[in-house]
């Protein structure tokens, strides 16, 4: 039997599936924190695609991009969670359907 050789398309398919799951979460969940986690999942799937391209082309540039995406994701998590915390202090909820005003 010929061995299964894992190629770039396997990693791209996995990355697409993870991105889709993250997208479903971001669209159907109402809890702001879970929506945030779903966005992190999507960022991770994109990172995986970058790393796969870097590996199959022997090019370090893809890894630099992953590094920069990780920095942006870290900033985004910190700022986003601070915003959610500030919202919770004022409205006592993290349900996105109830957070429908920009000021109060």
């Amino acid at each position, binding site marked *: 039997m010929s061995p299964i050789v894992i190629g770039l398309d396997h990693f791209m398919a996995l990355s697409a599936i993870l991105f889709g799951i993250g997208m479903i979460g971001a669209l159907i969940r109402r809890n702001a924190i879970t929506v945030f986690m779903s966005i992190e999942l999507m960022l991770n799937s994109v990172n995986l695609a970058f790393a796969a391209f870097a590996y199959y082309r022997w090019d370090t540039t893809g890894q630099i991009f992953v590094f920069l995406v990780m920095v942006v994701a870290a900033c985004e998590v910190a700022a986003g*969670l601070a915003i959610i915390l500030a919202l919770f202090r004022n409205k006592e909820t993290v349900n996105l359907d109830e957070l429908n005003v920009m000021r109060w």
Partner: protein
Amino acid sequence: MLTDWIYAMAFFLTAAATVASALMVVLHRNPVINALYMVLSFFGVAVLYVLLESHFLAALQVLLYAGAVLVLFLIIVMLMRLDQEQLMKVKPKPGKALAVALALGVILILIGVAHSLSQSSSRKAHFLIQREQPEQLAAFLLELGEKRVEGPARREPLSEAEKVQLAKQALTALGKAETQARVDWPEPFRGLGPEKIETLRKTLLAGLNRPGTLAQLSVPPQFKELSRADIAAFIRIAARARLAQLEEFGTTAAVGRELFSRYLLPFEAASILLLAAIVGVLLLARRSPGEGGSR
């Protein structure tokens, strides 16, 4: 080959675990459970980075996501004291079916694009370059008369076409500045100077693109002072530099070298972004003076 089977098994097991925990992040109602499954899926991605020989990224992934981001999420979830009742009464959004259909469509389109790119042979040459094998290059170097090579060499003998292909890849890589920086030219190449070395490289590459074996490659007419042995030495130097570069891929040294040379400006911009994020988060999370007290 056994290694291919092990690699495939590792890939599919990790992929299944990652997808399953990603699904739990989306489907479970308790945010604490969500956060823990999210970390499991991040660990899965870290293992995939190891399979992709991106060791530096795997370490970063565990440190940054499994460490910092998990702690941040858990602290925020626990600060909010979301009681179970409040969580349970949240019903699914009305457009749920539409959202799932949309996401499935996105998945199918992305997989379709990836599949068609890897299938069409005309694009494969340009877009999905066949991955170079360090083992092959090591075997090539041994055949060229190198005494000792780093890394394992392939067992089977190389065909003439493979040799020409490997020589072409090595000479192409030598055209890049980061490969050239690794080479310490011996005589007689040192006397030629960088410009003539570049001309020699291009001429040899053009010679290899014509049909024929590596042994038929002749000394370019404008380099009369060089012998056939010198040409072989030139190709050996190029292959050695390429092998060193391939072996270094994914290590902290390789990523750091790129990060602090070609990508220095994005790196500095990222540091400013981090600074801005720190200041912004402190401002956002601070209780306003009038509010005071505990909640």
